[in-house]
């Protein structure tokens, strides 16, 4: 049976790769390296990535609440992120199994067999893997087209994902990676003067960070209302990606959690689960 060996949460801002080299001295580079060390130690054979598309894989003609990629391979970034291009394998056996278990348990994924992925998946994978040789299972969560799925539903999806990994009849090690911010506004009314972005609710981001540090996930799920996430920015809903991942973690506390600062509405965290 497959084994869930690590869970990871990191931000995915598209400007990082051009601004922060993997081996650079900035906090962003250092935090990705610290998380990568935890992922390396877990010796995962495949990685499930939970992230939100930004109208690059999907559009409003058919925008999924939850989607899963089940093809053999993918590539990206399919947006204009300045970073290396990657062609990578999809772990289609694990992806198809998660799809099947999900359907049986009432999670009606949209399914794509032919897709590219944007910075939300590839920026973290760029920093956290060695040339993306590890096969990927992409899961998308709608984090920015109202109405969003509820935090409760996302947490339940994480619970399902944990069970699906455990029931895959193959001896392999699996990691789960969630990406995104807790507070961030892009190109909306709450950007900073002269900027494309703002952090409307740093207090909420710090609060989420404290809940994660203390493994108070039930409370976090109850507090992550649509109103609160929107107050935290027009992509405050990216917390939902994290909540899916937290649904796979159980009561474990993170083995790595970077200190929160006063300007970035995000976190870098890792859980060792085996």
């Amino acid at each position, binding site marked *: 049976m497959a084994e869930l060996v690590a869970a990871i949460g990191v931000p995915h801002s598209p400007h990082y790769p051009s601004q922060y080299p993997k081996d650079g001295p900035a906090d962003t580079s250092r935090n990705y390296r610290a998380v990568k060390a935890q992922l390396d130690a877990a010796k995962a054979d495949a990685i499930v990535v939970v992230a939100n598309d*930004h109208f690059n894989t999907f559009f409003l003609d058919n925008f999924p609440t939850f989607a899963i990629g089940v093809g053999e391979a993918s590539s990206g970034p399919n947006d204009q992120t300045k970073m290396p291009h990657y062609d990578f394998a999809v772990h289609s056996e694990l992806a198809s199994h998660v799809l099947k278990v999900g359907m049986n348990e009432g999670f009606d994924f949209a399914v794509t067999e032919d897709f590219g992925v944007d910075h939300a998946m590839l920026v973290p994978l760029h920093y956290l893997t060695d040339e993306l040789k590890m096969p990927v299972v992409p899961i998308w969560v709608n984090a920015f087209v109202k109405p969003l799925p509820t935090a409760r539903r996302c947490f339940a999806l994480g619970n399902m994902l944990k069970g699906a990994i455990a029931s895959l009849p193959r001896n392999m090690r699996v990691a789960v990676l969630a990406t995104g911010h807790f507070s961030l506004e892009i190109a909306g*009314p709450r950007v900073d003067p002269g900027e*494309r972005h703002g952090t409307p609710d740093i207090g909420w981001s710090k609060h989420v960070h404290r809940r994660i540090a203390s493994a108070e996930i039930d409370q976090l799920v109850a507090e992550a209302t649509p109103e609160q996430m929107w107050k935290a920015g*027009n992509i405050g809903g990216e917390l939902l990606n994290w909540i899916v991942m937290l649904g796979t973690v159980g009561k474990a506390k993170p083995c790595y959690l970077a200190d929160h600062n006063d300007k970035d509405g995000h976190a870098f965290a890792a859980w060792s689960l085996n």
Partner: protein
Amino acid sequence: MSAYQVNKLCHRLYHDRSFRDAVKADPAKAIADWPLSDAERKALLAGDVKQLYEWGVHPFLLGHASRWDLFGLTPAVYAERIRGAKDPA
């Protein structure tokens, strides 16, 4: 008013370079065939992102215009106009 066609147009700006170049060269001509309302067309050509946001255009799509200073929207102008816009109902 549905903002769908404006959303679609902004999506095209980001993903279709030839359309983007056409908008840069002659905005009114480039969007002439798009099925926008008169008010949407006027707001777009004026770079009135506050109004377009309030009609429900998604900020991630609207923001693409400022990546290439389209419709007069430098990043600074875009930020000045979008700040304080009201969320659509």
